[in-house]
């Protein structure tokens, strides 16, 4: 069985552990064994990134070196983690001086960065390592009569030259997976726009406004739910629906791609942690058909 090393990141294990559990279950079912990375550190996204280029490179560089030591590729479930690791890999691979400097720090604990480890976002594993055909074959209980909107996450898909996941202007991986599982993917205004999450620290009300616009646009296009591929986006698009001035009758479920695929692959809901979701997934689960 193919193996990949999960870098959990900070947010998934604390605020959305069901995403982690569902990823392990779904990839396992599709023939990829997830092993978890221990002794890791923050990737440096946004905060350290904003204050020092080299500190940012060192933080991500150590994570890359930890996987390299185990001869594994890295799996990331978060746009910020996958983006940071890829941007720093690109930087370290192309800047010998920076690489040397980071390696000096790493050598104190017997680690070394040479660039061998690849960074894979979850969508790349599903699309490239497993493939749509194999996933389609593994669908046991397809959905029917369900319209869903895909939200990709800015840092998952941009900048394309470095992250190389999907077409940044017109991404299709999540849409394809929605359809493979039997549901209908709806297009909506601002599909590639940000969820607003990165603005939470500086201005929560603006961030919420951006997220609410996104949900509103998806609903206007007929979506009954939103499928995500980043822990930050998932949490942000969920929590903006719980604000004071929001209409709870207009709430739609927000669900990570693996929690959406899991039931269709015949994986039990409790393994996927679906009952922990803050937006009710009932409308999605009730669209599941009997085994084909």
């Amino acid at each position, binding site marked *: 069985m193919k193996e990949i090393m999960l870098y*959990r990141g*900070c*947010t998934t*294990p*604390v*605020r959305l*552990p*069901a995403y*982690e*559990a569902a990823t*392990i279950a779904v990839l396992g079912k599709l023939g990829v064994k997830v092993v*978890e990375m*221990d*002794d*890791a*550190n*923050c990737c*440096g996204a*946004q*905060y*350290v*990134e*904003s*204050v*020092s*280029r*080299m*500190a940012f490179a*060192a*933080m991500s560089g*150590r994570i890359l070196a930890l996987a390299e030591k185990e001869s594994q590729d890295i799996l990331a479930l978060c746009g910020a983690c996958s983006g940071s690791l890829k941007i720093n890999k690109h930087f370290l691979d192309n800047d010998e001086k920076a690489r040397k400097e980071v390696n000096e*720090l790493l050598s*104190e*604990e017997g680690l070394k960065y040479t660039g061998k480890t690849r960074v894979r976002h979850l969508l790349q594993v599903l699309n490239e390592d497993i493939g749509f055909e194999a996933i389609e074959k593994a669908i046991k209980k397809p959905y029917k009569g369900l319209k869903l909107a895909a939200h990709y996450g*800015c*840092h998952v898909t*941009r*900048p*394309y030259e470095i992250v190389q996941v999907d077409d*940044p*202007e017109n991404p299709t991986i999540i849409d394809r997976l929605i359809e493979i599982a039997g549901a209908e993917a709806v297009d909506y205004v*601002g599909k*590639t*726009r*940000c969820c*607003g*999450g*990165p*603005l939470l*620290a*500086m*201005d929560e009300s*603006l961030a919420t*406004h*951006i997220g609410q*616009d996104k949900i509103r646009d998806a609903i206007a296009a007929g979506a009954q739910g939103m499928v995500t591929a980043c822990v930050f986006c998932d949490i942000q698009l969920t929590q903006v629906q719980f604000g004071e001035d929001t209409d709870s009758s207009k709430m739609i479920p927000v669900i990570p791609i693996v929690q959406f695929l899991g039931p269709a692959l015949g994986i039990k809901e409790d*393994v996927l*942690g679906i009952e*922990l979701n803050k937006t009710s997934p009932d409308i999605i689960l009730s669209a599941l058909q009997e085994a084909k």
Partner: protein
Amino acid sequence: MNNETHTPSSDFAKEIALIPGGEVINKCIQCGICTASCVVACVDDQYRPRRLIQKILIGKRDEVLKSDQPWLCMTCRMCEERCQEGVSPAEIFHAVRILAVKEGHIPKVFQITVEKVLCDGWMLADAYTDFNEDEREDLGLNPALAWNDTFTKKVKKKYLAGEESA
């Protein structure tokens, strides 16, 4: 030919151009596609990436370095994707942040978070409770997250001693 500039070039713009990410600022033709693509600009009528770049080009050094605006950018890179001149406002504002920090201008929330991350090794050490551990166990996940703070402390000492607390 490729390096032909279309805009005024202040000393401040030259300074930004020397920081990684800021190199091509003088290729900006002030077309405004970045502002038109920006979701932050959609919800905040003070935030205008084109205008912020213009302020750099005409040399409003003090105003830009002390402003919160470069810190409002979400680095979503929608503008970068659309800019026909190959300029990335996200990268330019990143270069501005690096310079601003050097001169002691950093929003409190960034300062506190950098400090936390480098001391604890990760961002959510305080938020991780028994409740989370139980939840992880119920899901069959390892409750011991085993974060490393030795390395991040080294990083702090080497690259950020004094700077982020300025």
